[in-house]
């Protein structure tokens, strides 16, 4: 795509298949890298904790976009799938005693399997009906972890305490370095998640997902096994989401059902809608935007406290209303999200000062 609009002429398919071709693209990549490397040294612990939350959200949103944006299978089960990742890796590492990375890996695989199971209705249902079916998966998982029959999950406590992350003699330190050390772990995992998702969609596997989304009858007629493609999409997506869930557990060091309610599913859907459906970059923008938004609203409310005191009192309501307004605004004015807005800005500056 960039190849045609920038006047770059590739001499081999290898060079054409690169994600970046222009100097500007390499420059932005360099800038991003520097930013990611410098952040932990310039941010205080409070903002680092927000950065860490964003990294986890990026992994979850990229995962959800694989399913919803790229494969066209709407899902309201995000919170439930994150719960599977969180509970299973907490139990595997703390109660069973597996090394934490291994516990996380198993939790990811388990979430993928659970995703496939709850993806089965997707073989028959589309659109709104599938939304309801995945809503059922959310409700079922939420119900199970909340009731915790036989106290299997939390041993009667109602929540799970998770030990400080530790691996091969390395242990995350105390208050002063906690956020910074987690930043490195989460940032690297988020980058890996983004890069691997990006890779999926420049190969045949990713194209088969998009084919299912665009035209499922034609997809079958060119040899795509719809059952397999959809279930693979559920598995891959849920694996990312499970990773986000288990990281939530180990980073926040406590697992409780309140963190994985339907609100979470809707928040993540909002991220990919605002960021851009069917775009990995969009999922990243959406995760950043929707994680920062409550913070901005809170600060704004504080600043306006003296003139508009009710804003502070009604903060949760104001926040929800703003969330809703923003989602609706994006659906109406830019359904392709922040990703599209960013593309347009790039185009504008590429041709600057000429207006096309």
């Amino acid at each position, binding site marked *: *795509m960039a*190849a*045609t609009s920038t006047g770059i002429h590739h001499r081999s*398919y*290898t060079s054409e*298949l690169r994600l970046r071709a222009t100097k500007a693209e390499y420059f932005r990549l360099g800038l991003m890298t520097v930013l990611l490397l410098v952040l932990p040294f310039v941010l205080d612990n409070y903002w680092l904790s927000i950065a860490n939350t964003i990294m986890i959200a990026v992994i979850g949103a990229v995962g959800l976009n694989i399913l919803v944006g790229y494969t066209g299978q709407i899902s309201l089960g995000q919170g439930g799938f994150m719960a599977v990742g969180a509970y299973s890796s907490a139990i595997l590492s703390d109660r069973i005693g597996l090394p934490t990375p291994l516990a996380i890996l198993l939790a990811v695989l388990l979430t993928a399997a659970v995703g496939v199971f709850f993806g089965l209705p997707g073989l028959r249902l589309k659109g709104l009906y599938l939304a309801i079916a995945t809503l059922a998966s959310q409700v079922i998982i939420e119900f199970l972890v909340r009731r915790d029959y036989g106290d299997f999950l939390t041993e009667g406590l109602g929540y799970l305490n998770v030990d400080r992350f530790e691996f091969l003699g390395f242990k995350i330190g105390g208050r002063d370095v906690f956020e910074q050390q987690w930043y490195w772990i989460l940032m690297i995992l988020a980058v890996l998640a983004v890069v*691997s*998702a990006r*890779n*999926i969609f*420049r*190969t*045949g*596997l*990713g*194209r*088969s997902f*998009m*084919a299912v*989304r*665009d*035209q499922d*009858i*034609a*997809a*079958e*007629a*060119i*040899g*795509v*096994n*719809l059952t397999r493609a959809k279930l*693979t999409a559920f*598995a*891959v997506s849920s694996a990312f989401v499970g990773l986000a869930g288990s990281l939530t557990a180990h980073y926040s060091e406590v697992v409780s059902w309140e963190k994985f309610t339907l609100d979470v599913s809707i928040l993540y859907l909002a991220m990919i809608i605002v960021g851009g459906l*069917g775009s990995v970059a969009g999922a990243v923008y959406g995760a950043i935007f929707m994680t920062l938004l409550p913070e901005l609203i809170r600060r704004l409310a504080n600043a306006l406290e003296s003139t508009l005191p009710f804003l502070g009192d009604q903060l949760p309501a104001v926040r929800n209303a703003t969330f809703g307004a923003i989602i609706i605004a994006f659906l109406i004015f830019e359904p392709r999200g922040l990703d599209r807005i960013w593309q347009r800005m790039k185009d504008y500056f590429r041709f600057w000062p000429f207006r096309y």
Partner: protein
Amino acid sequence: MLTRAYQHSLRGSHLPAGQPLLEVDNVSLRFGGVKALSDISITVTEGDVHAIIGPNGAGKSSLLNCISGLYHPQEGEIRLRTAVAAGPEAAVGEAEDSGRPTGEVRTHTLTKLPPYKIARLGVARSFQNIELFAHMTVLENLMLGRHIHMKKSVLASMLWFGPARNQEIEHRHLVEEVIDLLQLQAVRNKPVGALAYGIQKRVELGRALCLQPALLLLDEPMAGMNAEEKEDMARYILDVHELAHVSVVLIEHDMNVVMDISDRVSVLDFGRLIADGTPDEVKADPAVIEAYLGAEEESDRG
């Protein structure tokens, strides 16, 4: 065009020319009370352009849908014959059949298979109402035509470097030959949704060709086109047939278009097969003249 050296054969069948490739055997298809197909038997021969003509509603698309597995006839059977490739030809996309004696002929009953398995046997098609992947580029649509020949390992895809990238490049070579054959160079990186109707039809033909089909099914590839575009499309279909030696089943309601480019013509009317033969035989058939040409001449005069 004829001088251009393509490295890949687009033909997926290894049957000797002249042998029966597809056998439609007493097929009947009903929708509730509507009999879309009544007891149809047609044999498509390897190497032919086989036209299926008939007025609108005659059951042509229904027959095609039965062959590609989208519809399931209540009665009858449709069989495809495939042969194991001999020598170097076996290299591309023949993994499933490897290890068996070359030349061995197998018969597959299509009426028992889901559409994607029929595609994997080498039956590729286009649709009467274009069914492209609208949000993807021409290139991506054509690469999807390679789907059955590609490995789809999740881990290799996530890694990109190594097998995934090599595979993309390897298949890109064949796709570029199809782009060249159908002269789609200028629109290679355009999203198909934004292209003109005639070009979309060509992309759909291209996507089917990228399968390296044993049998190419085209449902009214020239419908909705002006005379010039029709001529172009007929030219492309002939190129596909002559350069790539792909056997083609061509559906068309306009009889004049197909008579020149077909080796054999079957005529459907109200779900029944009323004639089957060479273009000259069919043209002379009184039943065809009455049911089809008569109607057309009337409408021409009117």
